[in-house]
């Protein structure tokens, strides 16, 4: 857990449904909540474990700066971001993003915008452990192109 209540980096597995239920609770003026859950892929047996490293205090602050930008850009009521760190098994949730807005378009677009940034530019270091050894992963060309859609 971090100093930013809307943002959590956690080494423990989480239940996306519980996060979404809690995020939706007690909103009288929010007409739309959009959410996204990213899961660790097995990559057809190539990845047995994914390892994500963050720099606590730096990574969460960078995410917070960007999320506040998204909040202003899309006029969000609120957002919630939970990101796993440490070792993650295939099928486990890596990231949860939820956005709350008056209407659906802003909620969908803000969620998409946040995910494109998180996937390509967030300060994480990612290592894939597999039967053929370990390798550090960098953003794919597609990840970069996705993020550039919003520039």
């Amino acid at each position, binding site marked *: 857990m971090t100093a930013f209540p809307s943002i959590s980096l956690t080494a423990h597995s989480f239940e996306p449904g519980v996060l979404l239920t809690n995020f939706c609770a007690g909103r009288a003026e929010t007409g739309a909540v959009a959410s996204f859950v990213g899961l660790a892929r097995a990559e057809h047996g190539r990845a047995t474990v994914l390892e994500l490293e963050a*720099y606590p205090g730096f990574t969460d602050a960078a995410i917070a700066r960007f999320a506040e930008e998204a909040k202003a850009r899309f006029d969000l009521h609120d957002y919630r971001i939970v990101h796993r760190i440490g070792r993650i098994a295939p099928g486990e949730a890596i990231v949860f993003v939820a956005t709350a807005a008056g209407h659906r378009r802003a909620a969908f677009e803000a969620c998409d915008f946040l995910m494109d940034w998180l996937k390509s530019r*967030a300060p994480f270091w990612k290592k894939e452990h597999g039967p053929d050894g370990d390798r550090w992963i960098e953003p794919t060309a597609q990840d970069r192109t996705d993020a550039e859609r919003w520039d």
Partner: protein
Amino acid sequence: MARVLLFGRLADQAGWRERSVEAGSLASLRQALAAADPDLAEALGGPGVQVAIDKTIVRGEATLAAATEVAFLPPMSGG
């Protein structure tokens, strides 16, 4: 005394993630690290490696006050 942090492949290469180094500037810190491990020092100056001092990215030279945290950040992968 600067607290030096390495992340990602830099930590794997060095075989350590955190170490205290006596240095008054970023340049003297790099020299001290190079004396102990020239290959690591070269990697720390390699393309795409960013430096954060007390969790703020800096470019170029910097003085290091007491109890400064210096982090070497290889290219970030995203989540």
